């Protein structure tokens, strides 16, 4: 399926849930926050949250800032 991931089109063929997506990207789920189609997904629900063709996913974390 093709997702829009952090604003860029990206194909993903793993199991269709957020947990699989986050781990396939090599990210530590404890250090990020995820938004699916503008809805925040609580960390505890990644495995239970399906992803589908055309989804807009944002994955963010804390960086340096003033």
């Amino acid at each position, binding site marked *: 399926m093709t997702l829009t991931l952090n604003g860029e089109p990206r194909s993903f063929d793993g199991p269709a849930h957020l947990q699989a997506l986050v781990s396939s990207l090599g*990210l530590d789920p404890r250090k*990020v926050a995820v938004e699916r189609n503008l809805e925040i997904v609580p960390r505890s629900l990644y495995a239970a949250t399906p992803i589908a063709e055309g989804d807009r996913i944002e994955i963010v974390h804390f960086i340096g*800032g003033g």
Partner: protein
Amino acid sequence: MDSATDITTKAVPAAEDTWTVAGRTFTSRLIVGTGKYKDYAQNAAAAEAAGAEIVTVALRRVNLSDPSLPMLADYVKPDRFTYLPNTAGCFTGEDAVRTLRLAREAGGWSLVKLEVLSDPKHLYPDMEETLRALKMLVAEGFDVMVYCSDDPVYARKLEDAGAAAIMPLGAPIGSGLGIQNRVGIRLIIEAAKVPVIVDAGVGTASDATIAMELGCDGVLMNTAIAEARDPVRMGRAMKHAVIAGREAYLAGRMPKKLYADPSSPLAGLI
């Protein structure tokens, strides 16, 4: 009783001079940013030298092309510093609310810094939009420290809307021009029942001292430390400057006089 024991038992602990925001109590009155440093290691060392307990952080997209890049949390550790997520770069209330909802999910806490900016040239806060965003955030249970103009009227409106702290600018963000409107900031401090933190504009140590001498509860700075030639040393300087200003405020300065007043007695002159 030997003299050493005597000193120990008579020693009075230094009075605890703390401040509290949204139920959290802090000793350090210097909040530092984590932007513009050469790297996160230098950033961590400067924050440590500054004696900071709170650091501001930004929320941005993860770099998916290289997830192995250094991460802030590995250097400026969240178990050592309270992270204060900001909304830097947000120009509408909706942007700010969306960012802080994500920050709350990423960090798991509700204490945040709201800034809704206007023109990139001066980065003054858009106060109408800031007040609107504040009301949305308060309704969602956030504890909001609000970056604002040095206008006592708007500061009052923010407090009435439930701001956890009022954070007037000393000068434009990143300008290092020092405290431009002492009258406005003093009026805000006198009226506020929540903490007042001077946020932005400090360029060097004396600016931080001036802010503290006005009676504010703390100072927030980023560029003054990050862009010093030696950020770790400037962090230390700022720590002392904030303490000096606070102590001078508590001590109560002497009245200003128009003419000289000799410090040595005139009686007994030969």
